[in-house]
């Protein structure tokens, strides 16, 4: 027993070091998979409130460009008024999807797994797995919801897969991110007989319940031809500029429960 005390006294630094490192690594590993990710720490009221404050300061700096963008978007919406109508001030309803506008209060593009925090939460009707889009295209999916905030896994995340199709020939492919540049993603699972050109447009397929069909995802930047495999990969330029993201819409599928009840494997 005495020897044990001597041992602990002599190596207390090493023991503490190992204990703390093991604790840290357990925390890291525990938070690795997307489904286990507890973003509660980021979307809780203290950190959420803090990011809301800093975001308020930032919003002042961007008011002018934000205004211009909103005016442009208003004009675009007004031109589509023929088949969409406004239910009230904040929610635009079409038959299957409603769009809940939200502000980005924290955003990251430089990590390997990037998350966005928005200022709408459970009280605004948000639920995990809802899609998030902006004026220019797809942003990501809601992962975690707290009372007033929600965390969104952006497309700039190694766990993100978005189902898309080519706008001109309807072939389906998947868009992922290779953790390198926030402007570019990868289109995977393109059938190898398909000839792809630079500038081809990819839109959402509408198969995922999270996004309406035909929301812009990006354009092909570079098509690499790998002859020996069944599927090709291509470089994609996102239509969304993730580094200047300030205003997004959360997509609510009004028939989600009904569609889900038809899926057997759930």
């Amino acid at each position: 027993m005495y020897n044990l005390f001597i041992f602990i006294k002599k190596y207390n630094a090493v023991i503490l070091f190992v204990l703390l490192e093991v604790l840290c690594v357990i925390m890291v590993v525990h938070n690795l998979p997307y489904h286990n990710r507890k973003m509660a720490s980021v979307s809780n009221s203290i950190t959420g409130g803090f990011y809301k404050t800093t975001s308020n300061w930032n919003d002042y700096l961007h008011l002018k460009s934000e205004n211009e963008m909103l005016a442009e978007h208003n004009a675009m919406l007004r031109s589509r008024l023929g088949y969409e109508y406004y239910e009230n001030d904040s929610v635009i309803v079409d038959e299957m999807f409603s769009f809940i506008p939200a502000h980005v209060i924290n955003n990251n593009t430089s990590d390997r797994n990037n998350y966005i925090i928005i200022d709408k939460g459970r009280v605004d009707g948000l639920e995990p797995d809802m899609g998030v889009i902006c004026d220019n295209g797809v942003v990501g999916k809601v992962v975690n919801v707290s009372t007033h905030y929600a965390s969104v896994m952006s497309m700039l995340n190694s766990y993100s897969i978005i189902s898309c199709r080519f706008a001109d020939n309807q072939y389906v492919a998947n868009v992922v991110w290779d953790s390198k540049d926030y402007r570019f993603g990868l289109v995977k699972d393109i059938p190898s007989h398909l000839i792809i050109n630079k500038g081809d447009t990819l839109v959402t397929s509408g198969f995922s319940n999270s996004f309406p069909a035909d929301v812009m995802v990006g354009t092909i930047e570079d098509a690499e031809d790998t002859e020996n495999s069944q599927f090709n990969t291509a470089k994609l330029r996102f239509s969304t500029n993730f580094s200047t993201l300030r205003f997004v819409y959360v997509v609510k599928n009004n028939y989600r429960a009904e569609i889900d009840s038809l899926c057997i494997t759930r």
Partner: protein
Amino acid sequence: MYNTLIRNILRFIGLVLLQIAVFDNLRFGSFVHPCVYVIFIFLMPFETPAWKLMINGFLIGFAVDVFNGTPGLNAAASVLLAYVRPFIISITTRKSDIQDKNEPSIAEMGLQWFVLYSFLLLVIHNLFLFWLEAFSIKLFGVVLLEVLLSVPISLIIIILLLYLLNPVKNKSNY
């Protein structure tokens, strides 16, 4: 005694705020992640016991993690940083040099020594941080590139920040 405690608490809060509100939002490209909260561990007094260094490293790393949504990541790296600090000090100085010195600051130890000291610690810290973030051997090239680009920029920011916060008085005039 109380002075040091209050100064350390202010330093802690200030550095965490600076890291999460300013430097985590600066983008010098996707490979550069400037780290400034490590100053807290750099500047702890020479005679601080190892366990105190590591507990402090854990706390400040974890504080940054909570805001970044990456629990354990920065904490792990700064615990390692705190653990190796005594070794780095002992290989870059002689015992007699630091006997009458209080803390490893630029004012007391000189700029040249401080640059070497913080460079070595930053390399270890960033290497571990980025490797743990990538969590695979395959991405080792990317991790090395990140370290190579981040360390010099962090170092420059840290030195400028330290001069800005406590300017070294020019003794030769008096």
